[in-house]
């Protein structure tokens, strides 16, 4: 890796690491709910995990927004198509929930989790591409 690349990497926030932690929290919340439904289940752990994941997503975007000279054009070039792809995937998962008559609190928490998933994965893909935009 060149000196310039090393410099670029050094001043970038840990978007991938934070993104993976956020995804892990979403997945953990999803596993927790899936392991209990259709029986009654306390939503508190899933809500805590969802809020934590959403905060990490917001933090990731805020940290990226502060990076001087970040190649946003390349970022959004990739992000828009990745977003389309992951919205389709999230839509299919949501359809499976609705098909099985999931409703109420668990449906709301899982739907919001899918929203965070469908936004954060494109962010990770676009970030990985954009960080090497000037390599």
């Amino acid at each position, binding site marked *: *890796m*060149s000196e310039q*690349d090393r410099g670029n990497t050094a001043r970038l926030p840990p978007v*991938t690491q934070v*993104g*993976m932690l956020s*995804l*892990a929290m979403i*997945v*953990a919340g*999803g*596993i927790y709910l*899936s*392991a*209990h*439904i*259709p*029986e009654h289940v306390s939503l508190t752990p899933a809500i805590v995990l969802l809020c934590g994941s959403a905060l990490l997503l917001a933090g990731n975007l805020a940290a990226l927004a502060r990076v001087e000279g970040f190649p946003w054009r390349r970022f959004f070039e*990739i992000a828009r*198509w*990745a977003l389309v*792809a992951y919205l*389709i*995937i999230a839509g*299919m*998962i949501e*359809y*499976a929930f609705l*098909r*099985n008559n999931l409703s109420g609190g668990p449906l709301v928490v899982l739907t919001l989790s899918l929203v965070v998933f469908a936004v954060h*994965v494109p962010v*990770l*893909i676009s*970030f*990985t*591409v954009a960080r*090497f935009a000037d*390599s």
Partner: protein
Amino acid sequence: MAHAAVSAPGVVGDGPLLALERPDFQIVPRAGLPIVAVVLALTIAGIAVNEEWPLTFLHVVGGAAWTVIDLFLGFVLGPIIGRMSIPARVEFTTRLMPKMVLIMPTVVTVTLAAGWQLATKLGNTHTSYALHGWIVASYIVVGIMAVIALGLLEPANIAVLVEMKKPRPNPEVIERLMKRFIYTAGATGLMQVATFVIMTKLASG
């Protein structure tokens, strides 16, 4: 087919001293999109119909493809790619990776969506199911694989293709991203062994 040049590692200056030919390619192969659309439509239809045979078919075929690709890529192709000459590696990568962009998300989505529907139909998601602990174990294994694949593998796949599309790609970036891709494919391949254990246990009761 159009070709472009990739400079070899360590080459600096205005023009590459040693240039490698690479075939032209599409990052997302458009010809494959209708096939993906058909597969996803079949999955939606399978979930809507909610019959055991189509759901089992989609889950088993998707799961088999997912498992075999992960294992083959991580433990067979990965080491081979690592020992290839740079021109061969470049050509192989430009032909393999665009297909992976479409194949992996599709087989994963089909496997999980059909599997969830099948488990729900059979009552396997209920806590009263005798092997419910094994079902939850499968959620955990898939969850870990999903985080690795979505956070590391898929971004590396796209990024290496975008890098190779550039007029003058950086071989060091490609090398770094390919290593990440192969290592994460190996890690998910190892996790697939756990999937084998769980799924054979669930199938045999």
